[in-house]
């Protein structure tokens, strides 16, 4: 495997803009302005709520105020009689249509509208369809629901207690709140290593429930045409094709009669992967009224009822020699899945890819066991840019390594450097079965240290400590695993995790590429045009990218888990190569030579040995559709289609260093600096790559310091608005400093690994390690997220509290 290392610019310096320095810059990869921006800066984006269909009605959902209660009765008479109301739909109505329950993405079922009980605060109880959104909301007030309160299960640690209220009594024979047990690694081998290790450190830690909270909430517009039995469904979805298939399965509408359109999406972060009851209600509303029905949730609905993330109570253990050789890690996890198991992850991995918790280190043994339980909280579970629980895994191991460094009294950076998987060990099979494709960790960490001036920071910290000031330096080094499939190992409800691309070069040499994945702000219209441009040697502005419409794009599982570039990007590159091969045969026909006598230069096939004789892609495209006699087996176009089944996941990595100052009087944490060195393999558009990293870093600071979906003892959601669920503003985050190395993926057609989630995964432990480092003078070993001023202050007072 070849490893290419490129050093980035110095701190604060930006990547040079090739267009400004080299007029004859190469076509394809590089910093290019985004194709989607001209419409967005003019307010011409077309998001779901911007769409207005003729005769469209508006839906609103009535939600449960209680976390756990039996439904005694629902009286909708007054609401139905309210002027402007067209329909009021309840669970009983859906039961008659066999739609009251819908399958989740984790082989469970979820109530669309409650029939027997409500199982979390905010659960959907009734749906009103009215002339306009204000009237629909008015009518919600007129629905009378009688509940009989039941004791809720709120504390995940009590969910499996004997005698705990059984939440899922809808499931036959169910007597407890257990969802699954899952383990990975060799328990006996791990126990043996732990038994003989010099040093063992353990820590309980909570990765609290957080929410992706994209700025655009979720919504749908259903337009059912009863005459031809066709459903057009506009949805805020990251996975239009998977949704279409599931709707066909759930609603009994044949798949070819369903068109799912995902317009511009105002952020997803995993929140827009699942199918929410509101979408199904909109469909039923349209069928019942014979008119298009729009449903858009408000912010409280989004925060209280749609896919949360994390909620892992973890016990981590790490074993090492006295000299600082890490030998093994071991963990047990209690996973809060809420009232319905609706997480989104490959079927064979009920705890996602949590077993990547061995991190970036060469270990002798590892074992993890995860137990999933039901509680009276909103369902969901894998979202918020998490790459299938890698976020939790990285947090666990990076906190444990810091705890070990503290125990051994060595610098956390030195401990990491001494235990990294070495470059020559790649491809590296870790102790829980994952094969890391490529990596070269030390240069990334050394670059981060250089960018932050690690030694200088440590000196400053010592000076500050001497005068009683609290400054902390936190390091994390993460290895991500993204780009799922391969399909033989990974599926979601039986659908293999592959993705497709279709390339068509028009007679004039302009091209269109159609994708199964769907952008939510990542800039697919630009990145994918650049991939095709790089392969075919035509300018990206000559490439149109079509996505987000199942009628126009090939099948695939969609955008989440940083899949788009690793999977659909592979599909585009391979489809382009098919086009290129075909172009060679056609060029040979035109030039009256043999294909094997032609050589490729970017955008042109020419005669080997005589570059003056050749044909450009534009000329070849015209010839393909022209009158030249085509060779046997070559049909008259320059089109190709590929469904890409990745041979392995990709493993991006990075080194992050965070510097914080803590106010000892108030407990407030100020993030002073944040340095991020990322390696995502080949960088297609460095501007977009950097943007993805920045956004993830802000997410990480948010989770580490302020974001939290909490619950009181009654199961009331305490994070149900932006007054309560705090998201960083420009005031809480620093100016990010970034650097990069390039270690291409050896198995990916263009060596790209995916970048969407790296920073969200890697940054929380850097921040928490910094906070704990700042509090070291008090002998504090751990503070749970979010490190709010109150919790930090309590820790300083010697009374640390877990968030849940």
């Amino acid at each position, binding site marked *: 495997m070849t490893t290419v290392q490129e050093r980035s610019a110095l701190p604060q310096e930006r990547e040079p803009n090739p267009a400004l320095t080299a007029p004859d810059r190469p076509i394809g990869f590089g910093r290019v302005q985004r194709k989607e921006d*001209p419409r*967005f800066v003019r307010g011409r984006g077309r998001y779901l709520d911007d769409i207005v269909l003729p005769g469209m009605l508006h839906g609103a959902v009535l939600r449960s105020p209680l976390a756990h209660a039996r439904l005694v009765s629902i009286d909708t008479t007054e609401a139905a009689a309210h002027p402007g109301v067209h329909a009021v739909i309840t669970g009983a109505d859906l039961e008659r249509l066999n739609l009251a329950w819908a399958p989740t993405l984790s082989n469970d079922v979820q109530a669309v509208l409650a029939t027997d009980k409500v199982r979390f605060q905010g659960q959907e109880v009734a749906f009103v369809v009215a002339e306009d959104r204000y009237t629909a909301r008015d009518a919600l007030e007129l629905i009378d629901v009688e509940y009989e309160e039941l004791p809720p299960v709120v504390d995940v640690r009590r969910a499996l207690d004997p005698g705990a209220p059984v939440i899922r009594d809808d499931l036959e024979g169910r007597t407890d709140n257990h969802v699954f047990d899952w383990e990975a690694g060799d328990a006996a081998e791990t126990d043996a290593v732990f038994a003989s290790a010099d040093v063992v450190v353990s820590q309980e830690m909570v990765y609290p429930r957080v929410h992706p909270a*994209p700025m655009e909430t979720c919504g749908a517009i259903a337009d059912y045409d009863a005459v031809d039995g066709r459903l057009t469904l506009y949805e805020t979805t990251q996975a239009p094709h998977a949704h279409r298939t599931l709707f066909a399965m759930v609603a009994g509408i044949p798949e070819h009669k369903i068109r799912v359109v995902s317009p511009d999406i105002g952020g997803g972060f995993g929140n827009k992967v699942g199918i929410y009851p509101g979408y199904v209600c909109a469909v039923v509303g349209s069928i019942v009224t014979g008119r298009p029905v729009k449903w858009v949730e408000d*912010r409280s609905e989004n925060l209280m009822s749609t896919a949360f993330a994390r909620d892992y109570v973890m016990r981590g253990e790490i074993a090492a020699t006295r000299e600082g050789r890490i030998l093994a890690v071991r963990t047990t996890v209690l996973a809060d899945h809420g009232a319905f198991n609706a997480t989104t992850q490959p079927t064979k991995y009920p705890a996602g890819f949590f077993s990547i918790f061995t991190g970036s280190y060469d270990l002798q043994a590892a074992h993890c066991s995860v137990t999933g339980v039901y509680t009276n909280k909103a369902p969901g579970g894998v979202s918020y840019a998490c790459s299938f629980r890698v976020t939790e895994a990285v947090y666990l191991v990076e906190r444990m390594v810091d705890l070990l460094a503290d125990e051994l009294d060595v610098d956390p950076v030195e401990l990491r450097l001494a235990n990294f998987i070495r470059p020559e060990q790649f491809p590296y099979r870790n102790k829980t079965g994952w094969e890391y494709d490529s990596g070269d960790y030390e240069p990334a960490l050394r670059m981060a240290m250089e960018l932050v001036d690690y030694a200088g920071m440590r000196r400053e910290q010592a000076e500050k400590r001497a005068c009683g000031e609290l400054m902390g330096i936190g390091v994390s080094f993460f290895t991500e695993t993204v780009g799922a499939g391969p399909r033989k190992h990974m599926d979601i409800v039986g659908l293999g995790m592959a993705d497709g691309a279709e390339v068509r070069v028009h007679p004039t040499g302009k091209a269109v590429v159609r994708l199964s994945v769907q952008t939510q702000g990542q800039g697919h219209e630009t990145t994918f045009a650049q991939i095709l441009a790089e392969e075919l040697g035509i300018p990206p502005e000559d490439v149109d990218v079509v996505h987000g419409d199942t009628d126009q794009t090939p099948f695939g599982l969609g955008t989440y888990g940083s899949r788009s570039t690793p999977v659909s990007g592979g599909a585009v590159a391979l489809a382009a190569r098919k086009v290129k091969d075909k172009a060679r045969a056609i060029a040979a026909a035109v030039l009256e030579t043999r294909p094997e006598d032609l050589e490729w230069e970017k955008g042109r096939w020419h005669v080997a040995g005589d570059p003056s004789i050749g044909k450009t892609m534009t000329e070849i495209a015209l010839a393909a559709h022209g009158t030249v006699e085509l060779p046997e087996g070559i049909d008259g176009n320059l089109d190709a289609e590929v469904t890409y089944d990745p041979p392995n996941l990709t493993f991006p990595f990075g080194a992050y260093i965070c510097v914080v100052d803590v106010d000892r009087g108030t407990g407030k944490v100020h993030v002073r600096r944040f340095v991020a060195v990322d390696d995502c393999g080949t960088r297609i558009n460095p501007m977009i790559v950097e943007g993805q990293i920045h956004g993830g870093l802000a997410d990480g600071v948010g989770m580490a310091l302020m974001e939290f979906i909490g619950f009181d003892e009654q199961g009331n959601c305490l994070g149900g608005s932006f007054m309560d669920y705090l998201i960083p503003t420009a005031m809480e985050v620093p100016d990010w400093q970034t650097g990069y190395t390039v270690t291409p993926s050896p198995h990916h057609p263009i060596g790209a690994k995916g970048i969407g989630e790296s920073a969200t995964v890697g940054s929380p432990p850097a921040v928490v390690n910094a906070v704990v480092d700042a509090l070291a003078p008090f002998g504090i070993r751990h503070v749970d997220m979010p490190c709010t001023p109150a919790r930090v202050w309590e820790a300083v007072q010697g009374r640390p509290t877990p968030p849940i």
Partner: protein
Amino acid sequence: MQVTMTVNGTEVTRDVEPRLLLVHFLRETLGLTGTHWGCDTSNCGTCVVLVDGQPVKSCTTLAVMTDGHEVRTVEGLADGATLDPVQQGFMAEHGLQCGFCTPGMLLTARALLDRDPDPDEATIREAISGQICRCTGYATIVRSVRWAAEHPVGAPEQPAEEVPA
């Protein structure tokens, strides 16, 4: 109730419910969907428009409150085909990803530059502190506003594809 206001330089008069929010008046009554909506509690700022040149959260303003006032939305930023420098800056410096917060950010940036043509980073951060962007991590937004400050109105426009592919 009848309201009359100037929206992006054009006077409009409409009959509205007294409870109609300005954000819905703009989006639904006038069809100006560039102004977005993102929360129930006046925290996110995706709905920001300029009322008499000042950034205002249109989700927390009744349409009738702007009777007789001048409203400017993102659709009124460009002068025909010529983009406002803040629009150009956001494109040049990658100040947007999903684009949902962008109209509000652009208008706040415009109002800031109108009163302070050369704001430093801290001033820019403070000016947008009532608005949330979930995608960019803000640094590129700050750079975008700085770009606009360095390329004021009247300077020759950067071509739309400043960095051609």
